[in-house]
């Protein structure tokens, strides 16, 4: 049923009216694609995993990225916290905006809940200045958090979106310099909060899990984002279990990609440490030793900086090769 809904486009039917939208898309994608082509031509191996160098920042700053999903509870906030702090670790200055007005919890994940005194609503009201509402992380001083509103106050929704646009403008012209990344943690659903969150964004990260409920919502949200003019949409597939994929109990990442047709920014395995790090208010990527999910988030952040996408995915666990002498206990 889902596949019917998601995949009615056959290549033959679309090829007839191919020219106009293709031109449009190729125009908007040109800077990225030409860059990627150049880079892959120069160093073809790098697309898999890169650790040994600082990523090159692509695109114009500030990069305003909305992290959205449609369905709730798939890991938007986890992604925002971890990708945000990874970016900070990589040396970029980041402002994370918790646009989840009704049910905000990014501050909890970051362990900054006690330091949020002012929010954007107070800034709008003139109760404080913007710099007073930005909560600077003590671990990485180039990471700042801004919440949109207090749980109990109401956001004048008429200019919620506008306020975020002003916010971006204001950050651009601030003294200590414009942040390289503004990450917006979007609320679930496609309600007023979603509209507010996507307004200032010019690229989007779609978080989804490999199950059909989340995929259908993701497809719809992608459609809305594209209608809104956000062309650069990449997806993160979260809570992937290679063991279940191997047993054909879970869709593989490539299945997900086939259904959504989006470039992959990252694949995050299911990891018990995620819950633990939530409890501690200490994002996964700061853990030592890093865990599998933390590494995956770091890689996603890396690709986000370079506007790169995954060229290969981890599909299954392979048994470590045992040598001949392992028979003798060696």
């Amino acid at each position, binding site marked *: 049923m889902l596949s019917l809904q998601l995949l009615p486009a056959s290549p033959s039917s679309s090829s007839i009216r191919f020219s106009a939208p293709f031109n449009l898309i190729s125009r908007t994608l040109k800077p990225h694609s030409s860059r990627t082509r150049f880079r892959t031509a120069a160093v073809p191996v790098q697309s898999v995993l890169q650790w040994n160098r600082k990523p090159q920042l692509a695109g114009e700053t500030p990069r305003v990225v909305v992290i959205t999903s449609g369905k709730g509870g798939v890991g938007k906030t986890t992604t925002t916290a971890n990708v945000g702090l990874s970016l900070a670790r990589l040396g970029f200055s980041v402002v994370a905006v918790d646009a989840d007005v009704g049910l905000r919890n990014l501050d909890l994940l970051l362990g900054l809940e006690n330091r949020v005194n002012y929010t954007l609503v*107070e800034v709008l009201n003139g*109760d404080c200045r913007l710099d007073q509402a930005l909560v600077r992380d003590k671990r990485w001083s180039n990471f700042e958090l801004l919440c949109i509103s207090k749980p109990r106050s*109401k956001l004048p929704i008429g200019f919620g979106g506008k306020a975020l646009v002003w916010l971006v403008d204001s950050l651009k012209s601030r003294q200590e310099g414009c942040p390289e990344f503004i990450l917006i943690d979007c609320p679930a659903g496609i309600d007023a909060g979603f509209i507010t969150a996507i307004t200032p964004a010019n690229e989007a990260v779609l978080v989804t899990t490999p199950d059909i409920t989340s995929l259908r919502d993701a497809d719809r949200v992608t459609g809305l984002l594209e209608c809104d003019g956000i062309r650069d949409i990449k997806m993160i597939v979260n809570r992937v279990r290679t063991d279940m994929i191997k047993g054909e109990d879970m869709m593989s990442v490539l299945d997900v990609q086939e259904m959504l047709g989006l470039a992959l920014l990252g694949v995050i395995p299911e990891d018990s440490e995620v819950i633990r790090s939530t409890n501690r208010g200490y994002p996964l990527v700061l853990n030592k030793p890093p865990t599998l999910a933390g590494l995956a988030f770091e890689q996603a952040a890396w690709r986000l900086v370079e506007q790169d996408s995954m060229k290969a995915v981890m599909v299954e666990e*392979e048994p470590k090769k045992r040598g001949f002498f392992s028979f003798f206990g060696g």
Partner: protein
Amino acid sequence: MTSPRFPVLCHREIPSISSSWPPSIWTLDCHSITPIPQASRAFPGRLAELRAGFGMKLSWGRWSSYRGKLRKNFFVKVSASGDPVTSETDSVPNEAVGAGKGDPFNHFRGVISSLPPVVFVMKRNPGANFVIGFCIATAIFFIVGRVYAARNAMYDRPGSVADLVRRGQLRSDRRGISTPLKYEDPFNNPLVKVGKKNSTVEMCGKVYRLAPVTLTKEEETIHKRRRSRAYQWKRPTMFLKEGDTIPPDVDPDTVRWIPANHPFATTASDIDEDLAQTNVYQKHGVPFRIQAEHEALQRKLEALQREERLDKLVIDRGNAKDFERQFKFQAKSQDVEQGPPFKPSKSDFSPSPAESNSSSEEIQKS
């Protein structure tokens, strides 16, 4: 595989256990020496050959010729019976003991009874002692090695906590509490290794196979087109309360209706847009509202003082006291570190008390 390095070992050990072992393991483990039970079965004629082998100190050439003979014999037998493995192992006790079909104990006894020839061999050929001793030593070494390996295997039983520690998920000293990663070089991670040819990657001690992403640009655009057909949407720019009328010049598609009891959104706004914008843009100085409140306060005080100066007799004491008490109370309760009760004066304006005011308001609110 297992070379004929331990012929005696195989001969002595394997028949004793062969009947209790499942045939599949038997064939798996000692594939190349399967013909040997044939020897034990065809006692004593076959053993005579073996004895001859021992007597010749088991030179390689001899042994291989011996094996060749065995194999020939073996194949003849196999061709006669339908199922080579089972028929072979079943037939062993029958021939060796003649009673107790398939009973391992009886078979074992049969094997024991078939062993004296070997002891006899040892007695008769003292020169072979060294070879036998060497073989026994090798056997012991081999057994010890296997036990050691088995113990090792038990320690890294897949999925145990020990596994988690090895993978770096847990630390054995502080389980479940990983230490915060203070600024460490993010550009050098020893836990990630890409295999040769980019087909595997090792992360956290586990090797994963990599599959290339197959999505092409064409497929991407096809999906985009599909979505643009399926979902037509305009981002709402107008937010109205349910029951409001749409302004004439507004596209109804871009209107979003917000219910009056919406949990966090409201269409009502008591501040105007331009003001809000300048508030967001403000970089320095006192925030607008604080300033406004303060100015109002100041005006009130000024008016009060003027009144006081103009006619000190007919002052509205109650009003002034009320006001002052309230202010003092606030200043005291909120700002303990402020020290003495804050005396408002018209000349100096410091934003700090006003700011603390607002923050305390919030504390009270929330």
